[in-house]
């Protein structure tokens, strides 16, 4: 009896606590609320990564392995490693990126948490940009690791500021389209294999521009000769981030 009463009192206290801290939502929201939600989704993915180490570790270990395999494969056939370094860099970035992109919505679908995101009063595009930021972070961080590994394996220093700019611009376009496609394939029967099949052919401009840029930088060309490539990447980024932003709203309209 006394036990029960104590329990009831505890419950009452809990309920009073709820009443004392009512949930007051900011009405409307506007721009700052939108960016706060984008940030919340990004921060959530980062925190999950710190806790679980699911994405970044997979991407980097794949990348290191791939660079080593390329190094081994071309070792005796290519006289100078600068000849293959640009191609190796971008192939590995693109393939490693797919691993991360697959997880970005795949993990939400597998955990059943996609519904929780869709239930929240969040614009779909905020989910998109939150995921783009997280994927961009993973892709760029992985690229830095790849550059470091290539520095040692191929003895090529690709930490050139122009090359880093190329990686940033290429990464934005890649992740911008990749995040859209990752959402499209998250519920597909053949999710894991479908994403690269969809994404890689569309990524040819980014890949070609990236290889062209890195090759030109390795060859020591000046900025005037690089600017065409940078323009191409910038145009790609602008077109596809806007298009993805517009189309993303349509993906979950009935889910």
């Amino acid at each position, binding site marked *: 009896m006394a036990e029960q009463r104590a329990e009831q009192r505890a419950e009452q206290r*809990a309920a009073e606590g709820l009443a004392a801290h009512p949930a007051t939502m900011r009405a409307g929201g506007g721009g700052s609320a939108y960016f706060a939600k984008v940030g919340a989704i990004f921060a959530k993915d980062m925190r999950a990564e710190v806790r679980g180490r699911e994405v970044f570790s997979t991407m980097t270990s794949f990348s290191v392995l791939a660079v080593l395999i390329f190094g081994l494969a071309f070792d005796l056939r290519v006289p100078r490693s600068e000849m293959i370094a640009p191609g190796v860099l971008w192939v590995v970035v693109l393939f490693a990126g797919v691993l991360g992109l697959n997880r970005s919505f795949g993990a939400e679908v597998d955990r059943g948490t996609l*519904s929780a995101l869709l239930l*929240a009063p969040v614009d779909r595009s905020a989910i998109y940009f939150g995921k783009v930021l997280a994927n961009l972070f993973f892709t760029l961080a992985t690229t830095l690791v790849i550059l470091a590994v290539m520095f040692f394996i191929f003895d090529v220093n690709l930490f050139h500021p122009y090359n880093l700019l190329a990686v940033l611009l290429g990464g934005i376009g890649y992740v911008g389209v990749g995040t859209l496609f990752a959402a499209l394939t998250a519920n597909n029967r053949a999710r894991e294999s479908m994403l690269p099949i969809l994404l890689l052919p569309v990524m040819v401009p980014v890949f070609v521009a990236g290889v062209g840029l890195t090759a030109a930088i390795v060859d020591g060309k000046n900025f005037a000769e690089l600017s065409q490539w940078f323009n191409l990447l910038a145009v790609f980024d602008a077109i596809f981030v806007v298009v993805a932003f517009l189309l993303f709203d349509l993906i979950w309209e009935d889910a």
Partner: protein
Amino acid sequence: MGEEGLIVARKVAKRYGRKRVLNSVDLVVPQGEVMALLGANGAGKSTLMRIISGLTQPDRGEVLLGGVSTRRAGHEIRRYIGLVAHAPLLYDNLSGWDNLLFFARLYDLQRPAERVEAVLHAVDLWPRRHDVVRSYSRGMTQRLAIGRAILHDPPVLLLDEPDTGLDPASAETLAHLIRTLGASSRAILLTTHNLERAVLWADSITLLAEGKIAQSAPAARLTAETVRGWMAEI
């Protein structure tokens, strides 16, 4: 707005492939009422819940929440809905605290930390708040899922089998929550397999069979046996 019912479903129909799950369902849950939705497995309870929550669009018919059609309303209407689904809708690789704080931010809560603290106390998970959800027992996960649903204090609360996997003590916490939450300006729709609880917790009982409302009555005049009799008939 209130007189019509906080939750109104009008001629809602839904089919999945060859299976017709819901067949013109009409349902009204007035403000301040707790309605228990009962029915056999596959009767369409969960589908109806998902449609009311806006996660699934009906093929025909519409859902009005507070007089506003969910189809026409923008995403702002989702502020007024709380859902406990079969899946916990939680990140099992994050702690309970991180989960609720994340959702508090998505729902634009002011002073999110204070609200999360209050909710964690209410669902009795405060001591375990920094453990990852993966390490929680089934009952604790379910309690956190309920905490997530009531976090933003929604007037429309949809509880799809909230009592599955709950130990008796947790079920008692839940019953208390439903009583205190339902008393005010809310409308609560819940499903359960436990008829005794349904009769005890709810103000009214609605029976769903073959995608249609088969029976509907105030709970005060019913016993679990009567409801069991209805279900046996179907």
